[in-house]
């Protein structure tokens, strides 16, 4: 067995961290029912595990009020054996998911206003990155991690800062963030995440074929991506949210010290405390006022 260790952790071993959207408000209004979706996902996870004996999978559920790990393939064998219809992975995952949903419901404080509530993408991204960091520090030989976001809920602009921070730290650790977005409109955050970290952003046109999309585009490990051609998104929505009201804005004011974005003029930057000068428009409006007073 002396030569075997050198064969461990070859280039094509991957650690796939899947961020599964478990926002009930989204799923109750989605065209693809959750039960079908989860079968696509479980089949995909099984096939990834089949590709290489050393592949690992971690699934994090993104809820409305909390996020949690629901499956870790490297943890000791699950309690339940597979039933005839389902593998051990599926049983384990589904049970934990159910518990998670129950926990999430308990944490619900009030009804979400308006139409669609967003899920806690920033939280699950952070958890994924922490797990990956732990893997990095586990030794010189470790699988190559990547993050796959199976997401459908809308972007919550209040999470802009946290998500951007997570994206930049993923870029720094060279962890690509792939996204398969099954919601209605494009998600600006996930587009930016994939663009910045070098991952793939995909919005499937045919939701019944989700499994096919997943296995074609997101199944391969990072090393093999070098010789494959994966779909590229043509445009990226780079809009930001303002720091004061969390609205998505196109034009705004930026603090020249810390680059925080504001939609209205402020006297002081709330992030770094620097004091701003006067805007130009006030000087021009004064003569107008004087003239009006003179005319009447």
């Amino acid at each position: 067995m002396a030569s075997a260790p050198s064969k461990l952790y070859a280039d094509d071993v991957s650690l796939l961290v899947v961020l599964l959207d478990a926002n009930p408000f989204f799923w109750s209004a989605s065209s693809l029912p959750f039960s079908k979706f989860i079968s696509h996902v479980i089949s995909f996870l099984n096939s990834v595990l089949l590709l290489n004996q050393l592949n690992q999978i971690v699934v994090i559920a993104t809820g409305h009020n909390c996020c949690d790990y629901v499956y870790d393939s490297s943890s000791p064998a699950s309690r339940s054996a597979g039933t005839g219809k389902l593998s051990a992975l599926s049983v384990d995952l589904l049970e934990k998911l159910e518990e998670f949903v129950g926990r999430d419901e308990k944490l619900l404080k009030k009804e979400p206003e308006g139409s669609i509530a967003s899920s806690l993408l920033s939280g699950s991204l952070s958890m994924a990155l922490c797990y990956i960091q732990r893997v990095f520090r586990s030794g010189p030989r470790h699988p190559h991690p990547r993050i796959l976001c199976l997401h459908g809920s809308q972007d919550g602009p209040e999470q802009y800062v946290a998500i951007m921070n997570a994206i930049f730290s993923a870029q720094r650790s060279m962890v690509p963030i792939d996204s398969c977005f099954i919601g209605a409109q494009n998600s600006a955050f996930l587009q930016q995440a994939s663009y910045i970290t070098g991952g793939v952003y995909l919005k499937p046109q045919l939701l019944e074929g989700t499994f096919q999309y997943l296995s074609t585009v997101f199944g391969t490990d990072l090393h093999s991506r070098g010789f494959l051609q994966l779909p590229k998104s043509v445009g990226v929505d780079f809009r930001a949210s303002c720091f004061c009201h969390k609205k998505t804005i196109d034009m705004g004011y930026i603090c020249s010290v810390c680059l925080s974005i504001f939609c209205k003029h402020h006297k002081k930057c709330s992030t770094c405390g620097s004091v701003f000068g006067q805007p130009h428009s006030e000087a021009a409006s004064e003569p107008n006022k004087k003239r009006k007073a003179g005319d009447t």
Partner: protein
Amino acid sequence: MASAQVIKRAKYKTTVKDPGTAGVLKMAWDRFIFTPNHPNSASNLDVEFRFIKGHKNTKEGSNKPPWLNLTNDQGGSYIFEFESYPDLHTCRDFVGKSIGRSGETPTAASGKTDASLPDEQISTAELELRIKLLRENSELQKLHKQLVIGGILTEAEFWATRKKLLDRESSRKSKQRVGFKSAMISDIKPATDGRTNKVTFSLTPEVILQIFAEKPAVHAAFLKYVPKKMTEKDFWTKYFKAEYLHSTRNAVAAAAEAAEDEELAIFLRNDDILAKEARQKIRRVDPTVNMEADQGDDYMHLPDHGLFRDGGKDIIESQYELYRRTLAHDLNRHAAVVLEGRTVEVELEDTRTVAEALAKLKRVESANEDSDGTANQGILERIARITEIEDLQASHGPPLAPLCIKDPRDYFDSQQVIAVKAPAAEGKKCNLSSREAYGSLRDSISQTKQMGLLNPVVKTKDALQVFNALSHDISRTKYDVGKNPQDSVLDKLPSTTKEQLLHHWTSIQELLRHFWSSYPITSSYLYAKVNRLKDAMSQIYPQLEEIKKSVPAHHKQHVSVLVRQMHQALDAAFQHYDADLQKRSAKSSERPNGYV
């Protein structure tokens, strides 16, 4: 306010070296008048403060006479020498006030003048920098040619936003401050003329600077005696005589000469000022310095560590200790001066300037040291703390710094509040209540548990459809855009098109920057500028169209996307211009009685 007029006796000089014509200087609030004592002299002056840009004056503490230098805006200067410093100060204050007062009115006036470009004082150095930048950066040159020579922007405006580039250029050329040489150039050997008994010493300003730095007594003597008591040549002759006496190692003769000539004595004796400085330094030595000596520190049994100057041996008798100067002394002093690293910035032209510059430097340093009283306090405290004997003291805990951790919950709570208040985003309405939503999710999960996964997971036709769509998309985008998401469209275009597009883009950027910064329009200068910019932009517009047409078919789409962006930017500018124009014409028609 002080009196509205100041009348003082003064001499008017055109340059620093000019002896000056005596006369009377009268200053009123808007002008100053100088009438010379001799009515025939030609230096009558009557200058308004409007034209005076600034004023400089000599300081009271320096050895210079009290001069006031008024610079006018054409670069000329008027220098007045007063009789005393208080005179100078009153006049200077008056001048300062008048310039400040008259400075307000001209700017208001020039704001109304028609299209007059602001005066710019370009020094030749800056002009050279600009030319160099233009030569090196061909893009900048093209832009410059198009905009400035085409008359759209002025030089001032063009370079106003590029100060950073110019600064970078100028700082690259900044002079390195040269310190002292480590060679002892002050130890000059004379050139001897074999036939006569003359020896010639050659002095350069660097050597003089080093001599003054190493021997403060000589420096002080120079400042004191020259040019009042003796000329510079005499001074140096005496100095070198003293040096010669030193080199002969004849302490007896040195003592004899010193007794006769007072000035020579200064050069022959040990340096008083140096001794004083050394004493001060000794007092300030940290008592915690480890003074343990070892064999390497032995400097007593061999004089000068066994080194001899010029090969001779030193045999000194005690009564002539005062006149002894060993190699060790000189070397140590030279090394200390070199390591101090004092640099004198002035051009070393003649001895006088050297002496004065060094004197000024020393004054500045001693002033800085004196103001360092608190540093001494700190040193004393530190010494007291270090020299305490630990086992005789009670133990005190480690020093504490106040902890300031902001509660991270503050940030997240505020975010929560904002999130709750966030307005509703668009999207499908969720008709179910939250309980129903959670319930349905749980049901789906349990249903999957019961039924198992879909079999087959995906239908064949769906899979095939997906496959085809993906392949098509991938091949299309690969052909069009390239492999990496961060590849640029521009690289695919033919190079001429690419260059043209980039050039247009930079010029549009530049024009738009100037355009938007000119709003709101407060003066007719800005108005004219905006018009020029708008004309330039309207010219670029059709040029972009041309490019779009000239590109081969398979690039047309990308080029049109890029061109469209540029058009949009220009359109926004045009819109703003038209809206503003309308507003102005509407406003001007409001004025009663046709007043314009």
